[in-house]
């Protein structure tokens, strides 16, 4: 390593790159510098020292030395506030573009000392403050605006503290090897495609027909009010939706080809909207986009799979 790259500050601070698992704040990761208040205090201490000399006043000397020592000791305390702290992050829950994503970070204090006023945040953003009791772990959710679809590394997080006296700023940069998945923003003006794409299935449906009553299930938001079991509601049994079945099932293949005329992002958003709507109306659906084909299916996992495919369209997996 050449001298210049050794001295490269950015490299020095970010030496390790993204890391997986739990990371422990060791001496090599913690940096400490005086704050602006610390520098001002240094100057005040100098002024006090001059005054002490000038008035030849022993107690003034004593006070100056006391405050100097307190400052030095506070540096150790500030450093200790971070030293040994253990951190790890979890993959944040996927959200749609335009929403706010939450990055859960776990802080664990392995020592027998309380740690106060530990702050955690994105660079230059208002941080969150955490206090940790001895041997206590805490989860903190860092908010992260999801701007565009895709899988984004969460980037650099700053962990710092100025406790106890505010004269020193001890900090560490965290690079967690987690990435945030952002689904496309569901938008577009087209309604969910009707008949031409719906095919008759052979399997029978899951309460999507309207012919025979086959039972009831708890109400989900979005269920038709016509199917609500009003009698049950009147008996205070809660909201129940009556389910009807027939031999017809609604299967829908959402495909890239349906939207020939639009731009890529608009297409993705439109497809995303359809997937969301199809899931909400409990349809069985599949997704076909260049590079990904998701067979017809249903359920949370299927839904997530479809959205992920859309989110990652055109990006490296």
């Amino acid at each position, binding site marked *: 390593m050449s001298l210049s790259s050794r001295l490269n500050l950015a490299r020095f601070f970010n030496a390790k790159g993204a890391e997986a698992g739990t990371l422990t704040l060791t001496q090599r990761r913690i940096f400490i510098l005086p704050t602006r208040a610390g520098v001002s205090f240094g100057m005040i201490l100098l002024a006090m020292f001059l005054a002490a000399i000038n008035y030849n006043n022993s107690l003034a000397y004593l006070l100056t030395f006391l405050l100097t020592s307190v400052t030095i000791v506070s540096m150790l305390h500030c450093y200790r506030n971070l030293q040994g702290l253990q951190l790890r992050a*979890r993959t944040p*829950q996927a959200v749609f573009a335009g929403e706010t994503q*939450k990055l*859960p970070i*776990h802080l664990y204090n392995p020592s027998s000392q309380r740690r106060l006023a530990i702050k955690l945040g994105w660079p230059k953003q208002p941080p969150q403050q955490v206090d940790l009791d001895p*041997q206590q*772990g*805490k*989860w903190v*959710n860092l908010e992260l605006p999801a701007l565009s679809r895709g899988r984004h590394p969460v980037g650099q997080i700053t962990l710092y503290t100025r406790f106890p006296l505010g004269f020193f700023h001890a900090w560490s940069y965290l690079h967690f090897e987690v990435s945030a998945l952002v689904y496309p923003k569901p938008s577009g003006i087209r309604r969910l495609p009707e008949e031409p794409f719906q095919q008759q299935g052979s399997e029978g449906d899951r309460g999507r027909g309207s012919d025979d009553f086959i*039972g*009831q*299930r*708890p109400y989900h938001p979005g269920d038709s009010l016509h199917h609500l079991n009003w009698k*049950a509601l009147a008996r205070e*049994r809660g909201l*129940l939706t009556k389910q009807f079945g027939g031999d017809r099932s609604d299967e829908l293949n959402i495909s890239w080809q349906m939207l020939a005329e639009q731009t890529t992002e608009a297409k993705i958003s439109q497809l995303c909207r359809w997937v969301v709507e199809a899931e909400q109306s409990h349809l069985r659906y599949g997704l076909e986009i260049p590079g990904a084909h998701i067979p017809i299916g249903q359920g*949370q*996992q299927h839904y997530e799979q479809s959205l992920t495919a859309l989110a990652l369209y055109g990006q490296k997996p």
Partner: protein
Amino acid sequence: MHATIQIILQQLNSVILGKEVQLKLALACLLARGHLLIEDIPGVGKTTLSHALATTLGLKYSRIQFTSDLLPADILGSAIYERQSGEFHFHAGPVFSQLVLADEINRATPKTQSALLEAMEEQQVSIEGETRPLPDPFFVIATQNPSFQVGTFPLPESQLDRFLMRIQLGYPDAVAERRLLSGNSGRELLSKLSAVTTTPQLLALQQQVSQVQCTDALIDYLQALLHFSREAPYFSNGLSPRSGLGLLQAAKAWAFIEGRDYLLPEDLQQLLPHVAGHRLVSQEVGEHYNSEALLKLFQEVPVS
């Protein structure tokens, strides 16, 4: 008293092979005065287990097979007009037993399900404006097919909470299965079983369970576990205070079965997946965790 427990376990193990832990859990659930949910595919011995348990403990046993056309009255019983006396006479349903096996509970409609669950919760049944107490002890073992099967009504979260524990039986291991295949089937052995305890003896056992010692250190640990379930980002909802109390009771019963009169952190760890497993839902996938994964998550909590 521990000898009694040993005999009970011995007898149960002779009928259901290779399921020592599950049997102990089921017994613990009973001793902790909770209800048990067994979730597994048909044919692994759920019915046999409940029947064996009832016989061994000398409990009055009834089995209700849940179907989609089962009505609440089929479980609770109904008042029937009798010509001779000219009065309505109450015919008690199968729920008026000490051990009720609710087989394949998720096959019935929610209405029927909730009839049973309400009876479980309140230890009494109200029919036609008249309240009738259920026998003591009253223990329900419900079995449930894994919910992805067609034509089922999975129990909602709020109803699941009525069960103290949920266990899976799983397939027997090779040795046990071989013995099973070569020997007599469990059902035949069932008829040879005799009761080990009487009802008063069982009540006394339950009484003893609640006297298992529990120190502050242990309460600290329990609280840390509960706190973790509420705070960690793994679960959409944390454990309720009732679950906490249930966990403590179940752990006490476990310690008692293990022959101790005090609780250890290990007891809580042992019972946690079974008490919390059906209550905690993954924040990410929206499904329950399996036992190992759940226990792994709770390893973040240090034993105090």
